């Protein structure tokens, strides 16, 4: 489901119900069930057999929603928050930096709400494996239930475990370790034990405060990690609008100008003519309005999530390395 696409919705699938940009929710499709939202009532039976991406209309034929295929990115937008979660700019940057690819073995702690876990699983499947650890028992159980529902158990193993107290119980297996813990420095030794020693190992520590970064960096340094680098990765969203650009000469000449944007149906017609975007149009009085399509950052953006502290664990290289090749 989350680590590969299918085309048709089947009984038991998880779909993402899309109402609009700001409103999406996950839905487990089950024969005989009914789904209600502010756009109306939808029968699950009507969904089964449809293609993913289909638009379904409610019982009285007025409201509609789209049934989207679940992806880790969409899951991040709809996952029930049990903790602060990771978002796409962090998830994607960490995944690329840690060189996650099919076949990689990764350790994550804590699991939290499982937002990142879904993405890791998708990236390393089908031959890799994610061991994820969560010290909060109920959160671990909830995440486990989700992994089972989302068919991820062949790629993800979750364990309820306090890794600060007990370590990961793994040695020499991981290509990468991700620590999202209040005191990541206390887990650095365990991370070192879990990382492979025969090839390069990579670690990322995710901490909101600079003081945590300081302590983590010292611990990484003490334990022989190198190439300690730290980043913030965020993204700005842009919104788009059409802005009328009347000509001041018309005002100088004594005419009235309109600042009203061109109506939507006119825009639709322009679309059909294949000329969306900036252009000119005529308003009701027949005067010419110049319009510009502009974008601006949204008024409020996520300004901080966490600092991403990366380091590598270089393989042991002594004079005893066999150099004959």
């Amino acid at each position, binding site marked *: 489901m989350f680590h590969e696409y299918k085309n048709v919705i089947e009984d038991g699938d998880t779909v993402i119900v899309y109402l609009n940009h700001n409103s999406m929710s996950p839905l487990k499709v089950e024969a005989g069930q009914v789904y209600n939202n502010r756009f109306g009532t939808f029968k699950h039976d009507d969904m089964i057999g449809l293609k993913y991406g289909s638009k379904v209309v409610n019982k009285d034929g007025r409201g509609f929603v789209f049934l*989207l295929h679940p992806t880790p990115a969409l899951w991040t937008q709809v996952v029930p928050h049990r903790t602060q979660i990771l978002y796409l*700019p962090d998830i*994607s940057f960490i995944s*690329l930096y840690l060189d996650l690819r099919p076949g990689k073995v990764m350790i994550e702690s804590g699991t939290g709400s499982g937002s990142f876990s879904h993405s890791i699983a998708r990236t390393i499947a089908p031959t890799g494996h994610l061991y994820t650890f969560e010290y909060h028992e109920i959160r671990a159980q909830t995440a486990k239930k989700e992994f*089972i529902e989302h068919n991820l158990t062949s790629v993800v193993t979750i364990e309820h475990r306090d890794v600060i107290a007990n370590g990961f119980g793994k040695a020499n297996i991981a290509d990468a370790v991700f620590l999202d813990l209040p005191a990541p420095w206390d887990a650095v030794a365990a991370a070192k034990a879990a990382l492979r020693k025969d090839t390069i190992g990579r670690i990322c520590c995710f901490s909101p405060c600079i003081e945590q970064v300081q302590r983590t960096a010292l611990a990484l340094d003490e334990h022989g990690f190198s190439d300690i680098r730290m980043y913030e990765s965020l993204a*700005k969203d842009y919104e788009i609008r059409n802005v009328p650009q009347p000509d001041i000469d018309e005002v100088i000449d004594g005419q009235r100008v309109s600042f009203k944007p061109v109506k939507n149906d006119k825009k639709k017609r322009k*679309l059909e003519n294949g000329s969306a975007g900036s252009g000119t149009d005529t308003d009701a009085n027949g005067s010419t309005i110049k319009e510009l399509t502009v974008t601006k950052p949204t008024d409020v953006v996520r300004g901080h999530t966490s600092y991403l502290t990366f380091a590598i664990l270089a393989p042991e290289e002594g004079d005893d390395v066999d150099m004959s*090749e």
Partner: protein
Amino acid sequence: MDAEPAAAAAAVVAGPAQLERTVIKAGDHVIIRMPSSNTKIVCIRADSTVSLGKFGSFNANALIGRTFGHTFTIVQNGQIEPHHQAGFDAADITSANNQTIVDDPKSQKLSFEEIEGLKKQSLLGAVSSEEIISSLTENNEAFAQKTEFSKSKYIRRKQSKFNKSFVPLETTAYNLCEFFFEVNAQKTRGVRTDTLAQMLALANVYAGARVLCVDDGQGLVVGALLSRIAGGCVLGVHDGDVANYDVLRYINEPTEGRLRTLAWNKLNHQQPAFAEPELAADASENDVLGRARRLRGHQKLADTLAEVRQGNFDALVVSTKYAARKVVIRLLPYLGLSRMVVVYDQCREPLTEVYAWMRDSHAFVNVQLTEGWLREYQVLPSRTHPTMSTSGGGGFLLSAIYVGGGGV
């Protein structure tokens, strides 16, 4: 959670198969990070010499069989030695300050010629970089007055000049992207690491995915997609007769079976059957080889066209110098429903046009225009802060979920 539910227990794997250990092989491309933090890509050919300019040179054979990520120092006769990277210094806040330090070139008692002499000896391996740096600090009258932090910074600056240690880095998608962004951003259309990462995440690339891609940035995007694909494929639609994916040659992994390419002028091509007659029994070897080559080319195009026309691709990823809206329109018929369209550009305006069109079309939902915002920090004990200079922009991404229907 000690008692595993039966369903989950059955699915738990005994232990993961690890990927093969990566060592540097003859013929590999390696990114070398030098003491100055500058990087260069070199091909490690057996029996050749790798030159790092003013930092010296070494025998490529000495690196073959070694692992990536370790620090090595060039010693005498082109040999290298594993070198333990110095950890953090313990510099702390002291009462020293720069109140009485006056900028004076005469504070360094070593002459230019003496320093050049030390550098020459260092290249020959007769003097270590530590020895040069300590003679520089001993002969610098202002050094003792500096704060601990300032002394540490002075030493780090000198190390970046006189050290002869380097780190061989794997040509991963991240490292290649960072390399080209620093060295020649125009080659890869200015895509920064965070933006490339977001493209892969938004496009939902996974091992078995079939991805339709337009990459006019010399193959960095294609290469990054391929790094996430095992079993699936990337189909690159390109300008000219042959795809110019120069970046792929730096990736030490074969692309066979995972990459197909199609020229734009073949997109609507109706391919006739192979028409060359069978050759006579006494045909020359050249004629036989030529016919076989043309038959292979014909078959390859037929296979690629069949792959494209099968449609139902899992993602459409575009970084193009053409007007992007038309590029998307021409390839959309081959994309599956509820799949992602991701369009990259270094500038916002070309994407604004596509954004306006997608917003007003009924064929897309969740249309988003975003700009990555990446900031690197220096991390040192008590001296953590954002780097003084940073990249002003790493490109823009337009993404949407394709749901089909009218309007396109």
